[in-house]
């Protein structure tokens, strides 16, 4: 690489780099710091506040004021534990359903005639561009007590009385699967589309039954896409707020809702920060694997 090109590399990298350090990395460190602080009736509502003017004494006071009290609160109150467990359970179950629904669709797309494929991709992507909030709201229209689903089911004679759909786990799963389906289909499709069909023909020529060829050839080759899709769904679902808030019941909350409540209703910023730190810690592993798959997909071509 020539000297001038490497100078250009520094220039192009610098602005986005600094931006992300300032608005993505530093904020995390602040969350970490505030999670070790105490709630205070003040502005900002936490202590200790770092006082740069006080010099070394200020630093000592600051460090001395930090404590793990908020994490002890999280550990001692079942509310938080249940929220985390529920988030991880919901994210796992929803991801499993998404794989079950997404795989046949992605597979059919990859098997469609070549000229139709861009259109199919666009049809799958289009709802993803539409507002998240609107898509969740659309389901309230359908799932409410006198909504279209109950009307359709009773018109068909399947139910005598209206069924309660809203504020149930079923509604949350419907909303999650609906909102995240494109995230599952697209990476899967990308893997399946690249699949060399001559491999399947070779398997068939050698007398391998189709279902066996599917399990021993198609599925293993689709695994990178499956992994990327599953993580692309699992990670954000674990911290999901809008869907459980609008479609779910109030008796069980996911951790995203707990964080929201601590912050907006209880104004307890330090506990909200501690909730966030624990959630990030839980998600660091999946995020790292996702980044690895993503980098390989984009840069490995």
């Amino acid at each position, binding site marked *: 690489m020539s000297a001038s090109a490497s100078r250009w590399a520094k220039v192009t990298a610098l602005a986005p780099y600094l931006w992300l350090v300032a608005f993505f990395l*530093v904020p995390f460190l602040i969350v970490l710091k505030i999670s070790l602080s105490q709630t205070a009736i003040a502005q900002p509502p936490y202590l200790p506040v770092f006082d740069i003017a006080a010099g070394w004494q200020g630093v000592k006071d600051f460090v001395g004021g930090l404590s793990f009290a908020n994490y002890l609160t999280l550990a001692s109150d079942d509310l938080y534990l249940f929220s985390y467990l529920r988030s991880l359970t919901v994210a796992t179950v929803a991801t499993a359903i998404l794989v079950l629904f997404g795989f046949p669709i992605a597979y059919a797309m990859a098997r469609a005639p070549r000229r139709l494929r861009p259109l199919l991709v666009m049809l799958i992507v289009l709802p993803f561009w539409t507002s998240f909030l609107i898509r969740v709201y659309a389901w309230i229209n359908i799932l409410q007590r006198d909504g279209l689903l109950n009307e359709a089911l009773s018109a068909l004679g399947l139910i005598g009385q209206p069924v309660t759909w809203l504020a149930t786990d079923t509604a949350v799963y419907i909303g999650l699967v609906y909102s995240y389906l494109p995230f599952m289909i697209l990476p899967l499709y990308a893997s399946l589309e690249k699949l060399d069909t001559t491999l399947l023909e070779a398997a068939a020529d050698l007398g391998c039954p189709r279902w066996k060829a599917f399990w021993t050839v198609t599925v293993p080759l689709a695994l990178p896409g499956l992994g990327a899709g599953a993580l692309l769904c699992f990670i954000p679902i674990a911290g999901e707020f809008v869907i459980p808030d609008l479609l779910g019941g109030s008796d069980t909350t996911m951790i995203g809702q707990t964080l929201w409540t601590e912050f907006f209703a209880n104004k307890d910023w330090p506990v909200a920060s501690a909730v*966030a730190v624990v959630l990030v810690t839980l998600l660091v592993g999946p995020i790292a694997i996702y980044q690895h798959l993503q980098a390989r997909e984009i840069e490995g071509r």
Partner: protein
Amino acid sequence: MRRLSLTNLTALGLGLAFLYAPIAILVVYSFNASRLVTVWGGWSTRWYAALLEDQAMIDAALISLGIALVSAALATVLGTMAALALTRFARFRGRLLFAAMIYAPLVMPEVITGLSLLLLFVALDLDRGFFTVTIAHTTLTMCFVTVIVQSRLAGFDRSLEEAAMDLGCPPGRTFLAITLPLIMPGVIAGFLLAFSLSLDDLVIASFTTGPGATTLPIRIYSEVRLGVKPEINAICTILIAVVAVAVVAASLIGKSGETRPRGA
């Protein structure tokens, strides 16, 4: 040409129906004359007329549009630069951290991004409002722009750039005359995605906004919590139409770029 098997056709049909039916129902019911959401009272545009009277909703829409435009423009510049740096320069100090900071916001739960940015703004003692939401949205959406432009750069013939440089064209001019026009479809698609993500965001905006900067999703959310209303169906339909036009435009632009031979 291979044809789709019946199973595959069924999977596609059901999948697309599942994705589109709720949106279609929402659009149809926004034209319902009846105030009762479930009773069909004939076609009407009265809820659209009602929207025009709703000054709070119009203000929110204008604020959202402003934030979306400014943040998408910033995100496009920063995201494209990041994509160039990541694709062109395999090794530089801090590349690993850089890539991590690009990919993490794509999957990071929004409540965490929102909370952390708010705490930064509070620590800096910034007045929250239009400006802070714009910064927050830029941070999130530039990462999406990077991914889109990166995939465009991946199938890029560099010999043209090298030819220009060999002939003495300075790097800045080479970029403007050769590189930028070639990656333009990706850049435009990135801008449109950033725009629609910003227009759509509820959670991050809720954390980072302040008095006087209620965005459209925040406004819609506060109405939706109280139940389904025909006016909300109408505003949602307008938003869907805006985004649909943008997406179709983006895909046509993308296509016009792809039909040309690589590097032409």
